[in-house]
């Protein structure tokens, strides 16, 4: 469980990054912070592992107030995946994955055994273990990033636009893969993205954020799609592109948006064809 209680962040120059933000992410759920760059979503996420300290308010993980915990120990029990991967360029894949267990005092042998398990879990071949980050593809690097985040078996995963830097095909693949391993692992995940489709695909709960991390709307993807809270949310999630209807063209029933652009094929067997 992750809980934000009336969290504020004001920088010394007076910029308000976060104003009175509260949220509870129940255990084993995926919550997505969705917003444009600079809206404060990453700032919020980094408060969970104390990479950013709130000016006021509290963040809790399970029964601990994070400000009561030692930041270094706290970070070792929270998985963190970042857009660039953030892997150590001078360490091989397996050493990167073994990092946290090693820092936690594991023996090298145990840490490597654990790292090997994780590389298998994230679907990387054995041959990748001895390679260096510069020798991996973008998609492979992100998988290694996830493996490293999982190494200490944390309850909580923080994912900061983890698939933002890979091409769309690989991104789709990684998203599907994440859903699949989440079925197995059931971590509490806080996921940050500016990609609406990604947010709706991965999030059980989605928060659409305005500047200053102000919550424009919070709900399930279906709730947000059906009842956008206001014009901002309506436009942010795609506006009239999301208003679909079916039309018969050349004997096939198509799904078409408000501007008449084809969005897909209707496969529903009932109804008029």
């Amino acid at each position, binding site marked *: 469980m992750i809980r934000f209680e009336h969290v504020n962040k004001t920088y010394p120059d007076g910029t308000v990054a976060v104003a009175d933000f509260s949220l509870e992410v129940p255990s084993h759920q995926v919550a997505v912070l969705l917003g444009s760059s600079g809206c404060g979503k990453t700032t919020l996420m980094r408060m969970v592992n104390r990479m950013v300290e709130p000016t006021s308010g509290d963040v809790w993980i399970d029964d601990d107030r994070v400000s009561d915990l030692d930041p*270094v120990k706290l970070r070792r029990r929270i998985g963190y995946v970042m857009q660039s991967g953030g892997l150590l*360029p001078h360490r091989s894949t397996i050493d990167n994955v073994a990092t946290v267990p090693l820092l936690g005092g594991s023996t090298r042998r145990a840490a490597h055994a654990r790292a090997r398990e994780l590389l298998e879990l994230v679907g990387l071949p054995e041959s990748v273990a001895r390679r260096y980050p510069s020798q991996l593809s*973008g998609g492979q690097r992100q998988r290694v990033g996830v493996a490293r985040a999982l190494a200490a078996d944390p309850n909580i995963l923080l994912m900061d636009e983890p698939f933002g830097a890979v091409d769309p095909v690989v991104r789709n693949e990684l998203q599907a893969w994440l859903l699949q391993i989440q079925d197995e692992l059931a971590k509490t995940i806080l996921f940050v993205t500016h990609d609406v489709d990604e947010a709706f695909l991965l999030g059980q709960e989605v928060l659409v954020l305005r500047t200053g991390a102000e919550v424009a709307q919070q709900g399930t993807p279906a709730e947000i799609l059906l009842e956008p809270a206001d014009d901002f949310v309506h436009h942010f999630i795609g506006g009239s592109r999301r208003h679909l209807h079916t039309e018969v063209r050349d004997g096939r029933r198509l799904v078409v948006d408000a501007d008449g652009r084809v969005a897909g094929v209707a496969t529903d067997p009932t109804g008029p064809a």
Partner: protein
Amino acid sequence: MNQVIAALQWLADGANWSGPGGLLARTWEHLWYTALALVVGAVVAVPLGMYIGHTGKGRTFAVGVSGAVRALPSLGLLTLLAVSMGLGLGWAVVPSTIVLALLAVPSLLAATYSGFDQVPDDVVDGARATGFSELQIVGRVELPLALPLMVGGLRAAALQVLATATISAYLGLGGLGRFILDGLSVSDYPRMLGGAIAVGGLALAVDGLILVVQRLVVPRGVHVAVGPTDA
């Protein structure tokens, strides 16, 4: 041209190599002064450079001080220190080492902080978010990645110190500078030139040696060929 040939002949004469005042002994002395100055310089410059590079604080200060130190005339400073410290000729190695160490500081300092500085921010950020303490970030992330540049700084510093260490002879110390100073005082130009050539040769040898070290400390993974960037 005759002088050069005479100098080479002087160098080729085995008699000039042996004994307590011979080329071999003087070379060791010279290397000893150089090493001592580099160690003293590094003790000052490396921790300071690491601090500046890790925190990003004090950069302007470091640039200013480095510039000022570089501008100091070594021989003048040596004389000033030798006279004002009043340690006597028995302790001449103290002012001489201070002067040479000061010469090493700017290169070592600049190389250390730029080495730390060029470590990508996201690598440091990732390490911190993963649970590295600040000391572990410095020791296990920044230092290994900065080492090639730092050794580059050592190379520059070593050359400068080694070339300038000839002035130690001015205070009655040994080293290859002896041949130059003594040769000058008795107008023995082949000896003087021979000493200068020996300094040059030694500088080239030390430079080559540190170059090898510099290649060796490049961490694996940093210089390997970059593979395909898309999955």
